[in-house]
């Protein structure tokens, strides 16, 4: 049996995709590997049955740096993010790995499965509740939709859906009215648990959408967990979107994303010395302070997307 330690220190959304690669390595080659991970998000690996504690100084252990170079072909070839780590890992271990499920692989404890925690007992019992993230990290501000549009959607769906707002402290998450405010109050593990119990997620291209697809559905709910994703033109939809989500994108509608995602980082430079400020990483078409592709997505378009999802009714 080969012993592998998978290494990656990217963001939580990336690591949700790595959980899929680990699962499918074992499903395609059962009994062939003992595996462990070194990542920036241990919370995503809790209770994972494919983890065996391994030591890097064990001479039998192979340490694999996990990457997804496939992303560089994502505008030309029809691959999803889920293939990214999988293909790279397959090449590095010399075996074919195919996805067995369209989503990551996250495991919850009995306690986590029983309730969302965080004192959310006060949520309206007669309404489905969704998680909303109205901002994000400062490295990819181009993914942000305007907070007033998020607010419009929340207002338009009042009485039909209750929203729980989340966001990491230190990131940009302006407050919304008429929501349960959990900004700065959730650990990554809390977020996993919340997403599991929610009826859906309303956000840009973030870890939330990957968690929503990765987590199993609550027993008794017949349909998939919903997702309304405000994506614009940064990523090609086939790379990011999940089939049960409403993924609102503009690829093919503007010159800067005419044939694929622009893959740029920021709407305007922030002066923080990060490479994301370089001209080649800045939005080419800013309208009203937003990337044109995000500006094209109105609040009513997002509200209409909710109406297409049974999970919101």
């Amino acid at each position, binding site marked *: 049996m080969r012993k592998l330690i998978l290494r990656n220190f990217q963001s939580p959304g990336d690591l949700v995709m790595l959980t899929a690669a680990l699962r499918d390595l074992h499903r395609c080659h059962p009994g062939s590997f003992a595996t462990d991970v070194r990542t920036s998000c241990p919370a995503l690996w809790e209770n994972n049955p494919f983890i065996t504690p391994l030591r890097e100084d064990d001479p039998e252990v192979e340490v694999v740096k996990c990457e997804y170079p496939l992303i560089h072909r994502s505008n030309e070839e029809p691959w999803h993010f889920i293939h990214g780590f999988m293909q790279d890992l397959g090449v590095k271990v010399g075996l074919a790995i195919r996805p067995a499920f369209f989503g990551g692989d996250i495991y919850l404890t009995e306690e986590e499965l029983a309730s969302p925690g965080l004192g959310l007992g006060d949520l309206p019992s007669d309404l489905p509740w969704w998680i909303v993230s109205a901002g994000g990290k400062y490295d990819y*501000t181009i993914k*942000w939709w*305007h907070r007033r549009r998020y607010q419009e959607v929340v207002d338009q769906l009042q009485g039909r859906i209750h929203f729980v707002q989340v966001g990491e402290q*230190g990131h940009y*998450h*302006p*407050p919304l009215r008429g929501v349960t405010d959990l900004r700065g109050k959730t650990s990554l593990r809390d977020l996993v648990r919340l997403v599991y119990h929610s009826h859906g997620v309303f956000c840009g291209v973030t870890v939330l959408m990957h968690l929503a697809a990765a987590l199993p559905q609550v027993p008794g709910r017949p349909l998939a967990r919903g997702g309304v994703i405000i994506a614009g033109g940064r990523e090609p939809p086939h790379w990011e979107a999940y089939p049960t989500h409403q993924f609102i994108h503009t690829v093919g509608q503007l010159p800067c994303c005419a044939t694929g995602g622009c893959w740029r980082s920021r709407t305007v*430079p*922030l*002066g923080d010395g990060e490479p994301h400020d370089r001209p080649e990483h800045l939005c080419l078409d800013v309208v009203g302070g937003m990337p044109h592709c995000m500006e094209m997505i109105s609040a009513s378009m997002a509200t209409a997307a909710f109406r297409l999802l049974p999970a919101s009714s």
Partner: protein
Amino acid sequence: MGKRMSPPAPVDPRSSRDFRPELYPLCEGRPAPAADSGDPVAQRMLEFAGIYYRLNLLYTRLQEVRLGHSAALPAAIHAEIGQAVQDRDALEDRLAPEGFFAEAVIEGLVTTNLVFSHALKKSMEPKPAVSSSSFSLYVPMPQPGEDLEAHLRRHLGAFFDIPDSAVPAPGKAKRPSRKQAAAPSRKASRRGSKP
């Protein structure tokens, strides 16, 4: 902050003769930055502080009218409040692309403090002090079933290899020699002890 979104120089109400300091909000729990600061973050903070000061003044005036302490017309104050709210919204929208946002902490009718979100916040926060008397050690998690003491001895050998004779008897404080206390074993230093 980016050059594209350089704000106009904000008007500092503190230079006004009828300035009411109790209505001027704190910024991150501290007095607002100096008006002559050339720092773009400070300039943006002052813009928000100025507009919330204006709102505080107007709400206070409205309250005074309601209590009969002022002869001003409530409708006029309402119109001014409407304009100030519009100006605040416009400021928020202007700075939204760079993620600069002020969240008001309100007590009663008055905004007493502003908590800001912006890209440089993390780099401006005080760093934890690094003390020369502290150090950290890397110890990997033990394997299931592994003897914990043996595991710790393997990774923290230098601290376990102090001979019993070096441990002072109760009431007889004796420092271990520098060599005993400080020199890590070769094994421990290879395994990643960090200064």
